[in-house]
């Protein structure tokens, strides 16, 4: 088992220098904001993801949490990929990330869609760590639904 395939440089970099960390209030007081707190009961990792939206664009995704390098780097990548994106686009990325993580290493990620998220391809080969990578993404999905931008039609089906 090659440790480097799990701990890609990109993941360690996001872990050591997280992007957009810390829960923020929305700049626009009219924005809808909502958050979701998810825990991984097997290890105690926690993350809170807050989504601010004007109804169509995810104006900010902020987060806080404590956990392993994989879960914390994943939250940083989530922030970078989805903040400022339209809700529809964001859910395409969300779906691609979930598919990658559920693929047991058999899915080839599309860098145009997933950006730094492709670094998590190796994580999918470690079943014990898939939950770590998905933790912020599942919290995001809940937070977005609470902020009224719900799940995309494909995911709803």
């Amino acid at each position, binding site marked *: 088992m090659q440790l480097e395939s799990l701990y890609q440089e990109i993941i360690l970099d996001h872990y050591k220098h997280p992007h957009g960390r810390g829960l923020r209030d929305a700049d626009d007081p009219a924005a809808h904001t909502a958050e979701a707190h998810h825990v991984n009961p097997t*290890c*105690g990792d*926690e993350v809170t993801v807050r989504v601010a939206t004007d109804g169509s664009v995810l104006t900010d995704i902020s987060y806080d949490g404590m956990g392993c390098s994989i879960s914390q780097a994943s939250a940083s990548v989530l922030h970078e990929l989805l903040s400022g994106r339209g809700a529809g686009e964001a859910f395409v990325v969300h779906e691609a990330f979930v598919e990658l993580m559920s693929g047991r290493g058999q899915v080839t990620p599309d860098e145009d869609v997933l950006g730094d998220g492709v670094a998590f391809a190796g994580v999918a080969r470690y079943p014990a760590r898939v939950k770590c990578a998905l933790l912020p993404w599942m919290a995001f999905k809940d937070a977005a639904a609470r902020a009224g931008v719900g799940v995309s039609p494909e995911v709803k089906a």
Partner: protein
Amino acid sequence: MTSIAIPSGMPQYDDVPRYDVAAVRADFPILDREINGHPLVYLDSANTSHKPRQVLDVLAEHYARHNANVSRSVHTLGTEATEAYEGARAKIAAFINAPSPDEVVFTKNSTEAINIVAYAFSNASLRPDADPRFRLGPGDEVVISEMEHHSNIVPWQLLCERTGATLRWFPVTDSGRLDESGLEDLVTERTKIVSLVHMSNILGTVNATARITERVRQVGALLLLDCSQSVPHLPMDVVDYDADFIVFTGHKMCGPTGIGVLWGRAELLAAMPPVFGGGSMIETVQMAGSTYAPPPARFEAGTPPIAEAVALGAAVDYLSGIGMKAIQWHEKELTAYALDALATVPGLRIFGPTVPVGRGGTISFALGDVHPHDVGQVLDSLGVQVRVGHHCARPVCTRFGVPATTRASFYLYTTTEEIDALVAGLEQVRKVFG
């Protein structure tokens, strides 16, 4: 470890029973495995222990030669299976110095054993004619501690929810010991049962129970000791410990999964209402109502894990053959070695006692800010198997302000070389995450 000269006439180091660890390791087939290109270094025996060939052979032999249901057949195989099952019960009774094999109830694991006691309380509380020691209601109290495994917390929380009783607990000190300073206020005439871990699965602390037992007797409460982590590692004598119930599980003591033990004083088991209803636990059944078998059968409804019980008997034979005192001493030396070795790792913080006294061979720690998941993953890449997480003892993690810990735990087959491999692996972790 440094030795100091002990005055003559006192017990000497050489008086301690010892065994050949290399010979013991040869009994465990799995220890030959390689993990990720490295020799297996298994430091997770507090989670589950490995099984020696002697146990695996008995398990296979039972199914191959003696398989039949127990306690109901007149045929030869049925008799053999029953004798093997009841023989295992007698072996386990002798192992913990129980006055009678009938005080040994086979369960699935420690969790089920604790739940049986909790539900016996619950069921007794619904019956006006039940033994008052098991009747619980508002104003009554159940006492546990902050260092319990979830299996010795949640069943009591649920019991208190069902009955209106109040759950209270002993705190834990900064050094990971049980804080007994409030004993008199905590254990009172309102207390019906104190259910306490004997050895913490996360801190490694072995609790001294004498003062608590004395107080429990003073107030007329019952005492349950969760011995899941102690019975596998040290000599247990239920008479000497003066407990009312102890629980432990087979898979942590060289036995198979799916088999555990509830030991209870005969007269207490006899006073307890049944929990699971079904075959084997009855005296007579009529459509209008049933009467129940005496213990232990009363608490063993349905076909039990027969082969597993027989194999647990073999595990007990195996451990007794080496000697529990010798195993205890081996682990004490390993623990002293490990505490010294881990102290050389920069940024490492141990949760629990940092001296090899009043503790067993289970050591939890943090390595700087590196998350335990990451510690465990790097160690695994080097063949070193440790547990990471909250170890089903989340209140302990909360107490020490961490979401999780890394835990190394030892057993009779663990060597100092394996502890060296752990320490070397932690250097590698520091390189990756430094």
